[in-house]
Protein backbone atom coordinates (compact mmCIF):
# COMPACT_ATOMS: atom_id res chain seq x y z
CA UNK A 1 0.00 0.00 0.00
CA UNK A 2 1.46 3.31 -1.04
CA UNK A 3 0.56 6.96 -1.59
CA UNK A 4 2.73 9.23 -3.70
CA UNK A 5 2.20 12.91 -4.48
CA UNK A 6 4.08 15.06 -6.97
CA UNK A 7 3.68 18.76 -7.78
CA UNK A 8 5.16 19.34 -11.21
CA UNK A 9 6.06 22.66 -12.86
CA UNK A 10 4.06 23.04 -16.07
CA UNK A 11 2.22 20.34 -17.99
CA UNK A 12 2.48 16.69 -16.93
CA UNK A 13 4.37 14.30 -19.16
CA UNK A 14 3.18 10.96 -20.47
CA UNK A 15 1.86 8.54 -17.89
CA UNK A 16 4.49 6.38 -16.28
CA UNK A 17 4.19 2.70 -17.11
CA UNK A 18 1.67 2.42 -14.31
CA UNK A 19 1.33 -1.30 -14.46
CA UNK A 20 4.42 -3.04 -13.25
CA UNK A 21 3.90 -6.78 -13.27
CA UNK A 22 1.60 -7.12 -10.34
CA UNK A 23 -0.49 -10.08 -9.41
CA UNK A 24 -2.09 -8.40 -6.42
CA UNK A 25 -4.32 -5.84 -8.03
CA UNK A 26 -7.13 -6.39 -10.48
CA UNK A 27 -8.01 -2.87 -11.58
CA UNK A 28 -5.91 0.14 -12.47
CA UNK A 29 -7.40 3.49 -13.34
CA UNK A 30 -5.45 6.40 -14.74
CA UNK A 31 -7.44 9.61 -14.72
CA UNK A 32 -6.01 12.54 -16.68
CA UNK A 33 -7.34 16.08 -16.40
CA UNK A 34 -6.71 18.04 -19.58
CA UNK A 35 -6.91 21.81 -20.03
CA UNK A 36 -9.86 22.62 -22.30
CA UNK A 37 -9.90 25.51 -24.74
CA UNK A 38 -13.28 26.55 -23.45
CA UNK A 39 -13.41 27.86 -19.87
CA UNK A 40 -16.81 29.14 -18.88
CA UNK A 41 -17.65 30.19 -22.42
CA UNK A 42 -14.42 31.99 -23.29
CA UNK A 43 -11.56 30.68 -25.37
CA UNK A 44 -8.36 30.40 -23.42
CA UNK A 45 -4.79 29.51 -24.28
CA UNK A 46 -3.76 28.09 -20.91
CA UNK A 47 -4.57 27.73 -17.24
CA UNK A 48 -2.25 28.97 -14.52
CA UNK A 49 -2.23 26.90 -11.32
CA UNK A 50 -1.31 28.54 -8.03
CA UNK A 51 -0.37 25.93 -5.41
CA UNK A 52 -0.05 26.78 -1.72
CA UNK A 53 2.79 24.57 -0.52
CA UNK A 54 3.43 22.53 1.53
CA UNK A 55 -0.24 22.54 2.47
CA UNK A 56 -1.37 21.33 -0.98
CA UNK A 57 1.04 18.35 -1.01
CA UNK A 58 0.23 17.54 2.61
CA UNK A 59 -3.48 17.52 1.94
CA UNK A 60 -3.18 15.52 -1.26
CA UNK A 61 -1.17 12.89 0.64
CA UNK A 62 -3.64 12.88 3.52
CA UNK A 63 -6.56 12.55 1.12
CA UNK A 64 -4.73 9.72 -0.65
CA UNK A 65 -4.19 7.88 2.63
CA UNK A 66 -7.83 8.37 3.55
CA UNK A 67 -8.99 6.92 0.18
CA UNK A 68 -6.51 4.06 0.52
CA UNK A 69 -8.00 3.04 3.84
CA UNK A 70 -11.63 3.77 3.12
CA UNK A 71 -11.72 1.96 -0.24
CA UNK A 72 -9.09 -0.67 0.51
CA UNK A 73 -6.85 0.41 -2.35
CA UNK A 74 -3.42 -1.03 -3.15
CA UNK A 75 -1.80 2.20 -4.29
CA UNK A 76 -2.66 5.76 -5.19
CA UNK A 77 -0.50 8.23 -7.10
CA UNK A 78 -1.24 11.92 -7.55
CA UNK A 79 0.41 14.37 -9.93
CA UNK A 80 -0.64 18.01 -10.19
CA UNK A 81 0.76 20.86 -12.23
CA UNK A 82 1.88 24.20 -10.87
CA UNK A 83 2.15 27.27 -13.09
CA UNK A 84 1.10 27.49 -16.70
CA UNK A 85 -0.40 24.53 -18.60
CA UNK A 86 -1.41 25.13 -22.24
CA UNK A 87 -4.73 24.00 -23.68
CA UNK A 88 -4.69 20.31 -24.65
CA UNK A 89 -2.04 19.45 -22.05
CA UNK A 90 -2.55 17.55 -18.79
CA UNK A 91 -2.54 19.30 -15.46
CA UNK A 92 -3.67 16.48 -13.16
CA UNK A 93 -3.27 12.73 -13.04
CA UNK A 94 -4.64 10.28 -10.53
CA UNK A 95 -3.60 6.63 -10.70
CA UNK A 96 -5.35 4.08 -8.54
CA UNK A 97 -4.61 0.37 -8.14
CA UNK A 98 -7.24 -1.77 -6.43
CA UNK A 99 -8.42 -5.33 -6.24
CA UNK A 100 -11.71 -4.60 -7.97
CA UNK A 101 -13.08 -1.92 -10.24
CA UNK A 102 -15.85 -0.73 -7.94
CA UNK A 103 -13.54 0.59 -5.24
CA UNK A 104 -11.12 2.02 -7.80
CA UNK A 105 -13.88 3.99 -9.52
CA UNK A 106 -15.39 5.16 -6.23
CA UNK A 107 -11.98 6.32 -5.00
CA UNK A 108 -11.25 8.32 -8.16
CA UNK A 109 -14.57 10.16 -8.01
CA UNK A 110 -14.35 10.88 -4.31
CA UNK A 111 -10.71 11.94 -4.43
CA UNK A 112 -11.32 14.52 -7.14
CA UNK A 113 -14.44 15.94 -5.48
CA UNK A 114 -12.57 16.33 -2.21
CA UNK A 115 -9.50 17.78 -3.90
CA UNK A 116 -11.57 20.49 -5.61
CA UNK A 117 -13.13 21.38 -2.29
CA UNK A 118 -10.21 21.18 0.13
CA UNK A 119 -6.79 21.29 -1.51
CA UNK A 120 -5.34 24.81 -1.85
CA UNK A 121 -4.80 24.96 -5.60
CA UNK A 122 -6.31 27.81 -7.61
CA UNK A 123 -6.55 28.09 -11.36
CA UNK A 124 -6.62 31.22 -13.47
CA UNK A 125 -7.63 31.24 -17.11
CA UNK A 126 -5.19 32.91 -19.48
CA UNK A 127 -7.10 34.33 -22.42
CA UNK A 128 -6.24 33.40 -25.98
CA UNK A 129 -6.38 37.11 -26.82
CA UNK A 130 -5.13 39.10 -23.84
CA UNK A 131 -6.33 42.71 -23.61
CA UNK A 132 -4.37 44.98 -25.92
CA UNK A 133 -3.01 42.16 -28.07
CA UNK A 134 -5.35 42.83 -30.99
Amino acid sequence: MSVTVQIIDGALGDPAPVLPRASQFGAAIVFDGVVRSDEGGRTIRALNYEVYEPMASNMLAELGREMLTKHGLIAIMVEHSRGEVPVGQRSFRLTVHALHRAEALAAVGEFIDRMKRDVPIWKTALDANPPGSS
Partner: protein
Amino acid sequence: MGFDALQIMVFRVLIFGPLARELSCASIAVDVPDNASVRDVNEALAARYPHKSTFFRAARLAVNHAFRSTDAPLRAGDEIAVVELVGGG
Protein backbone atom coordinates in the same frame (compact mmCIF):
# COMPACT_ATOMS: atom_id res chain seq x y z
CA MET B 1 -0.47 47.16 35.34
CA GLY B 2 -4.06 47.02 34.10
CA PHE B 3 -3.03 47.15 30.44
CA ASP B 4 -3.03 43.40 29.61
CA ALA B 5 -5.98 43.78 27.22
CA LEU B 6 -3.98 46.09 24.95
CA GLN B 7 -1.62 43.33 23.84
CA ILE B 8 -2.15 42.55 20.18
CA MET B 9 -0.81 40.20 17.53
CA VAL B 10 -0.26 41.17 13.90
CA PHE B 11 -0.72 38.55 11.20
CA ARG B 12 -0.10 38.78 7.48
CA VAL B 13 -2.90 36.63 6.12
CA LEU B 14 -2.01 35.01 2.77
CA ILE B 15 -4.55 35.15 -0.04
CA PHE B 16 -4.51 33.45 -3.44
CA GLY B 17 -6.23 33.06 -6.75
CA PRO B 18 -9.19 35.22 -7.75
CA LEU B 19 -9.29 36.84 -4.31
CA ALA B 20 -5.67 38.00 -4.57
CA ARG B 21 -6.32 39.44 -8.01
CA GLU B 22 -9.52 41.15 -6.89
CA LEU B 23 -7.79 42.82 -3.93
CA SER B 24 -4.52 43.36 -5.84
CA CYS B 25 -2.40 41.93 -3.07
CA ALA B 26 -1.02 38.62 -1.84
CA SER B 27 -1.46 39.10 1.92
CA ILE B 28 -3.53 41.22 4.27
CA ALA B 29 -2.18 42.54 7.58
CA VAL B 30 -4.65 42.27 10.46
CA ASP B 31 -4.39 43.08 14.19
CA VAL B 32 -6.12 40.81 16.69
CA PRO B 33 -6.05 40.62 20.52
CA ASP B 34 -3.38 38.50 22.12
CA ASN B 35 -5.85 35.73 22.99
CA ALA B 36 -7.45 35.71 19.55
CA SER B 37 -8.98 32.68 17.89
CA VAL B 38 -9.33 31.87 14.19
CA ARG B 39 -12.76 33.50 14.25
CA ASP B 40 -11.21 36.83 15.32
CA VAL B 41 -9.11 36.82 12.17
CA ASN B 42 -12.24 36.23 10.08
CA GLU B 43 -13.85 39.21 11.79
CA ALA B 44 -10.78 41.41 11.38
CA LEU B 45 -10.69 40.60 7.64
CA ALA B 46 -14.41 41.36 7.36
CA ALA B 47 -13.92 44.70 9.13
CA ARG B 48 -11.00 45.54 6.86
CA TYR B 49 -13.01 44.85 3.67
CA PRO B 50 -16.61 45.81 4.45
CA HIS B 51 -17.76 45.15 0.87
CA LYS B 52 -16.57 41.52 1.27
CA SER B 53 -17.53 41.04 4.92
CA THR B 54 -19.91 38.14 4.23
CA PHE B 55 -17.21 36.31 2.33
CA PHE B 56 -14.51 36.86 4.95
CA ARG B 57 -16.75 35.93 7.90
CA ALA B 58 -17.40 32.51 6.30
CA ALA B 59 -14.01 31.96 4.66
CA ARG B 60 -12.00 28.90 5.71
CA LEU B 61 -8.63 29.80 7.16
CA ALA B 62 -5.64 27.48 7.28
CA VAL B 63 -3.28 27.89 10.21
CA ASN B 64 0.23 26.56 9.70
CA HIS B 65 -0.94 24.67 6.61
CA ALA B 66 -3.93 22.91 8.17
CA PHE B 67 -7.58 23.70 8.64
CA ARG B 68 -8.52 24.57 12.22
CA SER B 69 -11.81 25.02 14.03
CA THR B 70 -12.93 28.63 14.33
CA ASP B 71 -12.40 28.40 18.10
CA ALA B 72 -8.75 27.41 17.82
CA PRO B 73 -6.43 29.89 19.59
CA LEU B 74 -3.67 31.59 17.62
CA ARG B 75 -0.05 32.21 18.57
CA ALA B 76 2.29 34.87 17.33
CA GLY B 77 4.11 33.61 14.26
CA ASP B 78 1.33 31.34 13.02
CA GLU B 79 1.05 31.30 9.21
CA ILE B 80 -2.56 32.06 8.28
CA ALA B 81 -4.04 31.70 4.79
CA VAL B 82 -7.48 32.13 3.29
CA VAL B 83 -8.19 28.78 1.65
CA GLU B 84 -11.51 29.36 -0.02
CA LEU B 85 -11.78 27.31 -3.20
CA VAL B 86 -14.16 27.76 -6.05
CA GLY B 87 -14.45 24.06 -6.78
CA GLY B 88 -15.87 23.14 -10.17
CA GLY B 89 -13.64 21.52 -12.61
